[in-house]
């Protein structure tokens, strides 16, 4: 489903973000990428979303080199990947319903589907009662749940979560992890980056450890060990 093939990313100031990174992830897997700040976790996700181009190597999603896609195909590919950010990145001038509907509108989905699917996704994350609130009216945990609802509303094959619990208290962290697990159980590949030892240990899934831009460990049932 996802394949990094000898991917390196060097910046003009000679700093190295990734160095010969190779691994693949199968459909319906739950993979966590761990490492200190600057280890290359976020660069990895940016490569996957074609936000950044590799200096060397290729990144494949469903056997397609994401950096060779035409703009229209790139949009289609991105609609098939749900993204959750540490800082939520909800659209501040849209209410929660509109934030989630936006992802569907962008995919050209009809109004009837939007009317049915947006409340359903909000129900999945337990936020149906905050549908008409604006982001600034929600707590951090609620914002992250709304962001997850947006990520899953188009029923993507892949959900990427970049430090989704980084700004949350332990209680909300637990809730977010449970939601991500539920999403994975429904058949979606979840690709998570985190610093949180507790999260990794609680998940007991595959863990890829990164250091200095390289993959130093890839355990099928890993623990947090950086």
């Amino acid at each position, binding site marked *: 489903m996802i394949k990094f093939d000898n991917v390196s990313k060097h910046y003009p100031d000679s700093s190295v973000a990734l160095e010969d990174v190779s691994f693949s992830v199968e459909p319906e897997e739950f993979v966590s990428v761990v490492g200190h700040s600057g280890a290359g976790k976020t660069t990895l996700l940016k490569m996957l979303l074609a936000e950044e181009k590799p200096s060397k190597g290729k990144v494949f999603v469903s056997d397609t080199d994401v950096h060779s896609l035409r*703009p229209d195909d790139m949009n289609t*590919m*991105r*609609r098939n990947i749900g*993204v959750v950010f540490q800082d939520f990145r909800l*659209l501040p*001038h849209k209410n929660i319903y509109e934030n989630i509907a*936006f992802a569907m509108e962008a995919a050209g989905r009809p*109004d009837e589907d939007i009317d049915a699917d947006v409340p359903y996704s909000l129900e999945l994350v337990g936020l149906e009662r905050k549908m008409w609130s604006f982001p600034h009216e929600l707590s951090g945990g609620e914002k992250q749940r709304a962001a997850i609802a947006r990520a899953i509303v188009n029923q993507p094959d892949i959900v990427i979560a970049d430090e989704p619990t980084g700004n949350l208290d332990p209680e909300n962290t637990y809730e977010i992890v449970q939601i991500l697990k539920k999403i994975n159980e429904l058949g979606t590949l979840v690709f998570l980056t985190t610093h949180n030892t507790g999260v990794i240990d609680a998940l007991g899934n595959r863990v890829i450890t990164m250091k200095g831009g390289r993959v130093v460990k890839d355990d099928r049932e890993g623990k947090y060990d950086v």
Partner: protein
Amino acid sequence: MEQFTTAIRRIVRSGFHNFWRNGFVSLASILVMVITLSVLAATLFGGEILSSALTEFRSKVDVTVYFQTDADEADILAVKEKLEQLPETEAVIYTTREQRLADFEDRYRNDQTKLAALEELDENPLGASLNIVAKDPSQYEGITAFLEGETGALSNRQSSIIASTNDQQKQLVIGKLTNILNTAEQLGILIMAALIILSIIITFNTIRLAIYISREEIAVMRLVGASKTYIRGPFVVSGMLYGVISAIITLALYFPLTYWLADFTEGFFLGFNIFGYYLSNFGYVFLWVVISGILLGGVSSYLAVKRYLRV
């Protein structure tokens, strides 16, 4: 087709939402655009004032040829015909000896000394005249040269029938006024062009700043797979909305402003009533200001978003 109309409907709705929910940013953009559109409208009025004043002035400048009292009317009409054939000539008005006398008596009807002196004479002392209006004040030189016989209009025989022309006195004034008007016109165009460019730059930067605030939002939209057109659309709609509202405010402001300036322009610019012009040409001014507003808002937004779409 249905998908297209749905997308348009969503873009327009989203544009209205953005406009309403970013109230403060919208207000700031509208205020700046009102200034820009006011400058554009001022250009329109300024151009009209200048052109009207020039036309009025040109129609007042003329050259008059006075003929000898014994000049044959057929000869005078022959000169008139030749003058009318000149490309520089706008009109040639023939005044007979009798008409000139009547005009003189009418003008000095309260001046008994002049009228008494006239009665002392046995016959009408005034010769017929030709009043020549050129298409442009700068062309009087050509006409007077023609009258002087350079082009052969007045042969030796004909020149004897001319008593005098007033072109010598007017030549200098005409030349100076033409220069002043041309310089004023060029200077006016330059100043207005500079003002227009400056206000467009200010508007563009204001809208760019308004969109800069949304740059993260734009990046997120790209990452959830929205196309560039779908992201850009609502910003362009908001920009056009700024333009329409600014145009309406500008047009409303010009009512009291032109009303207040009407007396001044009428006195100073040879009878041009700016308020009357505004009322009688409201449709034209409305289209000019509204279309400028829509274009300015729409194009500025289009260009400003472009910068943040490279995700």
